[in-house]
């Protein structure tokens, strides 16, 4: 089971209240309030860490620097090498981060604009010349939903897998 949340504090409070409602009948009110605060604080902490992780990944992707340290391991799912850059789509749906009940896994959904780079095949003189001058790649932008899976390892969040979905 995972608890959906969004990146806005207002949404988080609303979802938190709904999730807490079924427990209210069996647990004393003071204890309930304490647990709820702790859970919400942990969730906020997790979300903040995941958001920071995502921002770090975006920065490294944009600057072309090695992002492997942000992943859970070398076999973690990466994006297709044809994806040249990923940027937030501010005209899209708000970011969504969902932390699993066990607090060890999470996933994120980010409306994104991605630049897809397609390498021209080196089958003609013109495409060979394009590659020889350091080009030979055609770029275009698309709106995509970036789906991220996160895993807590050694007390810190890491990226488990990334995938892009057409919208």
């Amino acid at each position, binding site marked *: 089971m995972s608890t959906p949340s969004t990146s806005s504090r207002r949404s988080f409070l609303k979802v938190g209240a709904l999730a807490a409602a079924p427990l209210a009948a069996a647990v004393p009110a003071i204890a309930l309030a304490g647990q709820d605060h702790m859970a919400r604080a942990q969730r906020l902490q997790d979300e903040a860490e995941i958001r920071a992780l995502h921002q770090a990944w975006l920065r490294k992707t944009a600057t072309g620097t090695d992002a492997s340290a942000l992943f859970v391991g070398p076999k973690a799912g990466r994006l297709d090498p044809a994806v040249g850059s990923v940027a937030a789509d501010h005209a899209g749906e708000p970011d969504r981060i969902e932390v699993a009940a066990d607090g060890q896994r999470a996933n994120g959904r980010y409306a994104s604009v991605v630049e897809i780079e397609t390498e021209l095949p080196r089958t003609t003189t013109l495409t060979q*010349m394009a590659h020889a001058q350091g080009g030979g790649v055609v770029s275009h932008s698309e709106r995509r939903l970036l789906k991220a899976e996160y895993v807590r390892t050694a007390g810190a969040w890491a990226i488990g897998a990334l995938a892009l979905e057409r919208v």
Partner: protein
Amino acid sequence: MPGTPYPKQPMYRIDYTKLTPEQILARLGPAATKGPASASQMSDAFAGKSLKIVTDKGSVLSYRFKGPNKLTLSEDGGKPEDAGYGALTHDKLALFAHLIPGAQRGYAVVIDRKTNLATVFELWFSGYKDNREVQREIHQGYVEQAGTPSPSARHAATNRMEGHAYHWTQDTGIETLEFYPSAAYSHFVELTRQGGELGYCAPSDYIKVDDDFYIYTRTECEFSGTFTVYAIDLNRLQQIGLRLGFDARDQLDYSLFRGEADWLGQIAQFEKFGDVAGNVVPPPKDAKKGERRLYRPFLTMPKMTPAQVNEAVAKKTSVFPPPGAGPQMAGNALPSSDFLAGKTLTLRYDNGPVMDYRIGGPEDLEWRKDGGAWTKARYKAWEPAPGVINFGHLLEGEPDHDGHMIVADFDNGLVTCFRGHLNTPYFANEAGVKVMFGVIEAEGVATPGYERHGFTDELLGRALTWNYAPGLTSMHLYSTPHAMSWIIFTGDDAGGLEWSGPASYVKIRDQLYYMYWLEEACNGTLGTIVINLRTLHDSGIGYHCGNEGLSMSSVGAHMRHAGRFDIVKYSQLKTERTPA
């Protein structure tokens, strides 16, 4: 031309000697002591003076000019070396050049005597596997003036020369047409030394001194390796320059020259307005000194024997593969035409066979040559202008793996065929071509009598851009009646790498032409297109053989007029040419 150091048949495969470093050093020795030759009176502007040139990369060149042709150079405070030199001046510019005795290197320096800014070309041989190819590293800097702060301005790489072209006449009498359709390459036609039949391309530097004066270089990579640098006065159309290299007889050409130009016009640039940046093709990451991105087609093309060609053709022959399966050259192709479907016709060539056709559907036909057996073939056709059909097919069973690429004008009963074939003398996979003119014999087609399509110079000097598919745009420059050059654009739409090959141009109707180009010593492809200057479109067929097999594929692109150079007067049209 008697005595010419070039072959009688100009081609793109001049067999330059692979000179050794020792041979080069031996040839440079006397010249390093004596200095460059010049047909013009050299300048004594530097005689008796000392110059200290400080460059941005840290080198400091300290010169003492002991006379009009002797100098002493200390590099970075090192041991002074004596050398011969030569200098020319023009207006505020001065150019001097020298070699370093006992070494395979030297310098050419252009100084703006008004601003004291300097562009230094460090030159050396034996820096590439072909030792004769001159390497260059450009240093920007200034001449140090005692008691004066160092200037912050510099000469700088630019695209502002892109689109220019000139007819240069040097003080030696040598005439060339020089085109700068790229900001990284240039194209030149040697009218005097080669007769102006073919044009060649070379990587080039374009450096802005100010709005009136520029510096240009070219290195004849893949050919003699000769380096040329000159400063241009755009207002007066005059130049002062240096040539350094070895000609086809391996004689050292180390000379200063002056020249005067006729302005040939200017074609369009396609960078965004405001973009005047140079170095449009940046060097590779971690480039070594002097290294830049070059197109070396002769080095990289497959070179096959007749047996290998036969094997490759037998292994795979591809005729008009479906969209997406073939090359990217047909992304903007015209829709194919069924004009020929169901027709029976004869194409009777004056200088070729009689070809009978029984056309089935829009992609299948039967042909027979000179009354022989009927053979089935796949074809495709397009209608680039009403009643004008461009179609092509392979002739299976022909020993040279012929392909016919045809333009048939059914309104006028005329046909032109580019007969492509393999097994040419140098590399068997290189295409050769024969142009065949003739008539159409078919029901409802009037006989043209003695009229025929013919070669034309009407495209001469034109530059046309061709967008084949997203991200794949080139520009053609029709620079001689027998050659063309093509330019690839960079991501910022600056002219980038450039190459050239033999070509021919045939007039089909007013503003409608049929042309071919041969990628001779460059992949071996035969490209054929019908150019419709009114619809700004083409239709065409490529014929190519490589290790992957023989292919015939469609070509189609959106065209833009990029302008036209005024060069017709420099060419005498020869009406017959059938390259290998």
